């Protein structure tokens, strides 16, 4: 695969082990600048591990991860994050003991980041503004998920990795979250993991399907929606 300037991120044939377990056995993903790319696949296929491998939390043993034309595989997560990759992990990964304001302020990479982004963030998630002093642990599930996304927006991130933003949320909150993510995509490139095919198909431009640790199919989301056979084969009843 020739290096391409228009891809913010290219994952090339990575192999990742967790302890003895061979979790990723050849995953390749391309994320074009300005797109929303979604990773699809059944439970346990390796979607989350792919995100963690990109960030460096579970470094791949071989293969390459190219961010902005530079190979970043093997670097520790704190350094990858500082290069401009924001990560919103699954399960509402906020700091429960810190207030909403502290959760946001802690994500500043340069002083003034928060002041610059405040209006944008509270525009996306108006709820957070009135909860600013509450400890993160006191927020509802949906509010925690919003805070987790908001936190990734504080610094200048060129790429956001978002893992299962709809998981365990009420339908009305899912709508709000989808709206926020689609508005976000005007500012930043997004790589999304999403089990909810309806949500994924409405949001994403591109997809990559991962099956038992391997990327088996990728392309434009619009084409997949009409491809009943592939949906049945790779995603089963999910559609």
């Amino acid at each position, binding site marked *: 695969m020739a290096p391409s300037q228009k891809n913010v991120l290219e994952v090339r044939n990575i192999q990742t082990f967790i302890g003895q377990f061979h979790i990723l056995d050849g995953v390749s993903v391309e994320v074009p600048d300005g797109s929303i790319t979604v990773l699809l696949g059944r439970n346990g296929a390796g979607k989350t591990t792919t995100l963690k491998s990109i*960030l460096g*939390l579970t470094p791949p043993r071989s293969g390459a991860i190219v961010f902005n034309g530079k190979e970043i595989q093997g670097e*520790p*997560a*704190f*350094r990858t*994050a*500082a290069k401009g990759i*924001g*990560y919103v*992990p699954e399960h509402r*990964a*906020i*700091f*429960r*003991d*810190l*207030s909403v*304001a*502290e959760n*946001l*302020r*802690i*994500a500043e*990479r340069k002083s003034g980041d*928060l*002041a610059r982004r*405040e*209006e944008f963030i*509270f525009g996306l998630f108006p709820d957070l*503004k009135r909860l*600013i*002093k509450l400890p993160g642990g006191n927020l509802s599930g949906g509010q925690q998920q919003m805070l987790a996304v908001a*936190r*990734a927006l504080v*610094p200048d991130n060129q790429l956001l990795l978002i893992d299962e933003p709809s998981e365990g949320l009420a339908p009305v909150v899912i709508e709000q979250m989808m709206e926020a993510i689609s508005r976000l995509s005007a500012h930043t490139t997004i790589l999304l993991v999403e089990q909810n095919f309806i949500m994924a198909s409405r949001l994403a431009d591109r997809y990559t399907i991962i099956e038992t640790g391997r990327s088996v199919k990728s392309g434009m989301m619009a084409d997949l929606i009409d491809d009943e056979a592939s949906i049945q084969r790779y995603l089963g009843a999910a559609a």
Partner: protein
Amino acid sequence: MNETLSTTTHSSARRRLAQWWPYLLILGLLVLFPLLAGATIGDPAAAQDGAGLSSLMQRAESGAAKFWQGMIIQILIFAIFAMSYDLLLGYTGILSFGHAMFFGTGGYAMAILIGRNFNWSFGMALLAVILIALAQSLIFGVLSLRVKGVYLAMVTLAFAEMFYILAEAGDFRKYTGADDGLHGFPVPGWLSATDHRTRFYYLTLIFFVAAFLIIKRLVDSPTGKVMVATRENEHRATMIGFNTFWYKLTAFVAAGVFAALAGALSAMYLVSVTPSMLSLGRTIDVLAMTIIGGMGTLVGPILGASIIQLLGYWLERWFGASWTLVYGILFMLIVIFLPYGIVGTLRARSFQIRDGWKQLQQTLAGK
């Protein structure tokens, strides 16, 4: 728009006063204590000349007034030690079983340097204590923070035991006094806690207030917030771009230096250091103070240090040799009914009276 986020950091003078008055009240009482004690429980016969303040000061150097100042000096020294441990365990989530290493090394460094072998001045020795603690905590911090949880506890315990064995070893008897420790080393006359109890009291109070303010400033700073974030979930802190190792090391070094200062003060006050200062037992003491008072509250460990010191004194008077048994039972009850320590439980307003009873009954019924 900006004010929603900035009001949480910059509060007005009035709000600051509202926040600080309990601290100021306690500080005021501590400052006045020698005079009050002199007036009430000091020996009137001790006031030889004059009236007013100078006679009060003389009475403060006598009888029960002198004894209780000594008690508070020891409480304050342990409070500094316990606050340093809270920075480590309560705020950053590092469970060290070797914190006494810094306390003991600080004490020994002070005793050896002002002792006959070196004859350093108090100021120089104090500076040396700080530098030694810095070096020691940097080295052992880098070595032990590579691992986490129980493994870190074991590694720090091993390091502390190493120093314990060194202090006990006969090979360095000339310097350390081996298993006897060092006693009666020449503390400068102007600082002797025997002759100038009130002066030593104020010296300790200054160290205590400085330690409290510095540690509080640290935990309230952005760095402190990253420490809390690291305690809660180190992965998450890494994900947003923090090299958590440096934050843990910062906590480790700051905690080490304050523990060493507490050890040095203890050596000066008791005019004695023994290997037990470096023992696991001493770490357990400070762990108990932190847990009883409330981890991650900073005020809790101060309260914990006071309670344990005072309880130790009274229980021993009432129960004689078996006081540790009563102490153990009290400790269990506190952990069962006040799971976040005294201050922590008060702040969380979560008294687990019913759950505590249930647990106690189950324990007693052997379930």
